[in-house]
Every structure is written in C-alpha cells, then in structure tokens.
C-alpha cells in the first residue's frame, strides 16, 4: 500500500529533521562528514573519498545576530545565516562536519570561509572567474587534482578513477531522479505545488544514502503522476505558470513562493541552486578521463559568479519554453552583487522573450511580507 501524497511530501521534511540523528550515527560508526555550501562542490570527489556530504546553506534568520558580531551587517543573509550557525553551534550538521568545502564564488562567501576556518577545518576550491577563457577548464582541473591530493594526504584515503566513475554514475542517477520529479511540472496544470516540490528536493539532500534518495524521489514521482492520472489537481486549468530564478531561496520560500501560490499562481520551475540548475547536467561517465568529465560538468553551471554568464540566459530561455512559463519571478537576496547586477540582463532577457518579469529583493526577516504579497498579487493580476 503506497502512502498518500501529503504524507509522502511530509516525509521529506522529516528526513531533514531526522537527519541530525543520522549524522550522529555516521560519526559514531567512524564515518566522515563534509559540509558543503554550493552547487559547484564536486560531490563525486567527496563520495570517492568516503565522505558523506551535507549542505550547510543557512536558510534561517535566527543565527544572523550571532553572525553580525563578526561580519558586516550589509552582507547577504545566506552568508550571515550560514556563518551564524557555525559560530553559535546551532547547526548539528556544521558541528558534525569533519571538513567544510568552500568555493571562491562571491566575495562575501570566500572571505567568510576565511573566518570560518578559525572554527572548523575549511578547504576552499578556487573557481575560474569565467568559462570562456581557454584555460578555465585546465585551471579547474588543477584545483580538483589539488583537492584530491589534499583529501588523500589529510585523511589517508585513495581517490581512484574507478571510485570517481562509480560516484559519477550514482550522482547522475540521483540527478535524473530529481529531474524526473521536477519535469512533472511541465504538465498543464502542474501536478504539484511548487512549494511542495521545493521542500521535497531540499529534504532529499538530508537522506545521506544514495539508494534512499533515489528510491524516495522515484516513488514520489510515480505517485504524483498516478494521482494526476486519477484526476487529482492542485491547480485549476489555465493557472498562471511561473518560472522562478535568482539566488538560493530556501530562506525566503514561504514569503515568496508560498505567497505566490496562495494568491493563485503556480511555480512550475525553479532555476535556482536547489532546483533544475543543480541537477540538469550529467557527468559523461563514458569519458576516457573521468576527472575531466566531472570538471566539465560543474563548469557548465550557469551562476552569476562567472563573468560573463551566458549559460544562465540560455538555460532560462530553454526552461521558459519547456515549462511554458507565463511569467518570471527573480528573487535576489540583499547585498548579493553577482545576482543583483545580473538582474538587469535578466530583465532584458525577459523582455526579449516577451515574458513579464517581477524582480524581488528580500531577506530572511518577515518585515516586508505585506509588500511582497502586494507585488506578487499585482504581478499575477497583470498576467
């Protein structure tokens, strides 16, 4: 007997909560945990080195005051929240992490990792500034090799091509499972609330076992599809279909996506970090040199930390078509320079695509909830 859908969705949130105990167990059994912050982190390398990865991306305003004792006030809430969790020992995942992986993505983050290094062991990967210079891939490969050498030296492990290839196969499988669920939203009307979808994708990351992640997502995908085929519809026909893009939105989900859907819109696609952008590209597991294939895969992530960043625009164009978006909502966290500046290009792109675009800047506090509701409602009235 399969479970009802609401319970299944709930399980993903539970997985996140129960994850703390799992993390503790992993540690007690002699396992190692790596805390990560970014979709650029090459999970395959951590897998091959025997680490269990967990995302430490801060999505709560609760720890921001603690962070502001060390960090400037006008820094993005994600960085402050993440650092605040570490400095106040409020996040068990940060606490249990043997190693934290940072990347030179935005300036705020890379400087924060330096401070984080006083509290935890941190390894910061250097990303190229863009992907259009011919040595970008070569440089990134050097970084990955250097990272592997560090792991091997520091932890006495051996990261072999065979292990990397096996990890890539497994990670691809997980990415396909995520994409499978997300692609259901191409249906019209979409079969899931975007809010539910986001929570499920987020929660899946806290299951820690590859098989469990894949099987839970595949089961959910099958059951959502079955419910849809039985005629269950969370949205009426003709509901306005919204493509969401911008910064990581885990910390502002309720007051943006939640409100948008309460007001009668449907989020059909998340281009953001936890959404399609992080899952849609596969590692070529048949490639002769598996590390090169891994490096190439990660360099194709269209993030505004890259200059220029044509991949995001190409991807958004493709997603808007595939998901038949009626409008685009871009969510930017305050003081996020890469996304904040690129907003102008996104606005122009939406104009070219003939898609109405609403750009919101919001942080983790509830102070602007009323204004956001008005803007989101007005945007839906406009479509």
């Amino acid at each position: 007997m399969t479970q009802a859908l609401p319970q299944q969705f709930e399980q993903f949130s539970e997985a996140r909560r129960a994850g703390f105990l799992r993390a503790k167990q992993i540690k007690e059994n002699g396992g190692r945990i790596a805390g990560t912050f970014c979709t650029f982190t090459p999970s395959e390398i951590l897998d091959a080195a025997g680490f269990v990865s967990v995302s430490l991306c801060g999505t709560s305003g609760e720890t921001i005051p603690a962070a502001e004792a060390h960090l400037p006030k006008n820094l993005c809430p994600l960085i402050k929240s993440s650092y605040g969790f570490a400095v106040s020992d409020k996040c068990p995942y940060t606490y249990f992490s043997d190693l934290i992986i940072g990347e030179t993505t935005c300036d705020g983050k890379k400087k924060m990792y330096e401070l984080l290094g006083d509290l935890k062991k941190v390894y910061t990967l250097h990303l190229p500034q863009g992907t259009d210079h011919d040595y970008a891939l070569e440089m990134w490969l050097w970084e990955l090799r250097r990272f592997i050498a560090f792991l091997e030296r520091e932890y006495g492990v051996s990261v072999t091509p065979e292990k990397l290839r096996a990890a890539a196969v497994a990670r691809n499988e997980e990415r396909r499972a995520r994409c499978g669920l997300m692609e259901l939203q191409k249906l019209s009307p979409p079969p899931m609330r975007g809010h539910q979808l986001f929570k499920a994708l987020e929660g899946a990351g806290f299951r820690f076992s590859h098989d469990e992640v894949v099987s839970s997502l595949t089961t959910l995908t099958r059951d959502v599809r079955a419910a849809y085929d039985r005629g269950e519809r969370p949205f009426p026909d003709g509901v306005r279909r919204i493509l969401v893009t911008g910064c990581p939105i885990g910390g502002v989900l309720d007051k943006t996506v939640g409100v948008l859907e309460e007001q009668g819109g449907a989020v059909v696609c998340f281009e953001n970090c936890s959404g399609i952008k992080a899952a849609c590209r596969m590692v070529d597991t048949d490639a002769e040199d598996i590390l090169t294939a891994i490096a190439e895969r990660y360099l194709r992530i269209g993030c505004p930390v890259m200059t220029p960043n044509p991949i995001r625009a190409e991807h958004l164009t493709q997603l808007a078509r595939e998901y038949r978006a009626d409008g685009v909502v871009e969510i930017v966290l305050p003081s996020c320079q890469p996304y904040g500046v690129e907003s102008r290009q996104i606005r122009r792109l939406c104009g070219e695509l003939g898609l109405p675009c609403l750009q919101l800047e919001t942080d983790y506090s509830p102070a602007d909830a009323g204004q956001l509701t008005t803007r989101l409602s007005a945007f839906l009235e406009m479509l």
Partner: protein
Amino acid sequence: MRAAVGIDIGSTCAKTAVLDGEQNLVTSFVMPTGWSSVDTAEAIRRRLAEEGFDTAALPCVATGYGRVAVPYADKTVTEITCHGLGALRLFGEPDCAVVDIGGQDTKIIRLSGGAVADFLMNDKCSAGTGRFLEVMASTLGIGPDELCALSGRGGGTSISSLCTVFAESEVTGLIGCGTPKENIAFAVVDSIAEKVASQFRRLESTEGGVYLTGGLCGSPELLAALSRKLGRPVRTCPQARYAGAIGAACRALTIQKSEESV
C-alpha cells in the same frame, strides 16, 4: 441606478469613489485611515449609506494595504492594478506611465494597451513617499500641504540623506544653521522628486505621457520638480488622488452581484 463602489484603504488615507454605469464619478470622499482599517471600512459603509449607496446591493472592490479589512467588498484587487485602471479612466491614455506617490509606497506603473505591463515599487524604505514628506513637515512644524506650497518660494538647498531618519537630523541641522524654511521645504520636495525619478528611470521603455496619482497630486511644486527631473511633463488632475478608488470602482463595474442574495 447601476453603480459600483471602489475603496482604497491606504496607509494614511482611505479614499472612496462611486461610479455610475458609464464610469462617471458620482461621488468621492477621503478620510484618515486611523488605527483600524476595519473601523474605517465601517465608517465608509455608513457614509455611503447616508449618500444613498447601499454596499450590500452595489458591487464593491477594495484595494490598498487595508483591502482585506473591508468585509462587504466583493473582491480585493491590488493598488497597482487599481491605479493603472484609475489612471486609464482619468487620463484616457492606454500606453503611458503612472507614478503613484502613496503614504508608504511609491509605485511606477507602465500601462500598455490599457493594462498594467510592468511596475516597480520602492523597497522597505520611506524615501520618496508621503511619509517622508509628513516627517519633514512635522520637523518644520508645518503641515505637508504648507510645506509643498512653501517650497515654491525656496531654492539653493539640498538634503543628501535618502533615509528618513537621517534626513530628519539633516533638516534639524539646517534649521539650526538658520536656513530659511522655504529653502528647506524646497530641498524636501526636491529630494522626493529625485528619489521618485531615480525609481522611474529603472523602468524601461516608458513611452507616452507620465501621470501622477495619489495624495501629492494637489501639489504643483512637486509636479514641477518631478517634470524637471524626468525631463518631460508630468500631468495630473484633481481626481487623481482617487485614482486607486476609481480604478477599484471600474473593476467593480465588471462584477455581477449574485441575484440570490437580494
């Protein structure tokens, strides 16, 4: 008589407009919003009843930040859509830009083909809103209208702080230096116009006329300052203060009140 009611409960003032079936303005009135939007909505209902308009029988749309507090409204619509509709009704230009300076929000709305095509709103900040004007006026010990009127005779002073709290100290400083009141008033109006203009410039492809709605449309000084900053004439009309309520009433005219409730 076929008619419809539009109610715009803003942060400072509550505006009401009644339109007949041909979209002619039959009556309009404004009252302070006060502490409770619910009480205001009730006061509006009584006032309408006195004038012979029964909110139970007439279609009614509520807008503004207090829109959810009007129990007898048939529908709520955001002030952005309503100001767009209201401006279209008042100025009759389907492709234009509307600037609404409200008590706590300033909105720039682009109309295309008579419908809202794009809009921008100020962030969590009162610079360039009616609240900024109110605070500065109270620092000067005068009313907002008086400040605007006074500004026409001033010049040569500017306020650089966009933050209302900092600007207040800046004004206090200017008073301390003995700067003439009209020059400070000029600086206040100029600051509002500059903030609104900088927001306006963020909205792309704003062709056609520019129209001002909201509580400050009675100030020729602000209109002149804004026109100067934008380099194009900004127009308005006396009823533009009611644009949100008029837009709401326009929307209400499209509602069929259900028969069984009669």
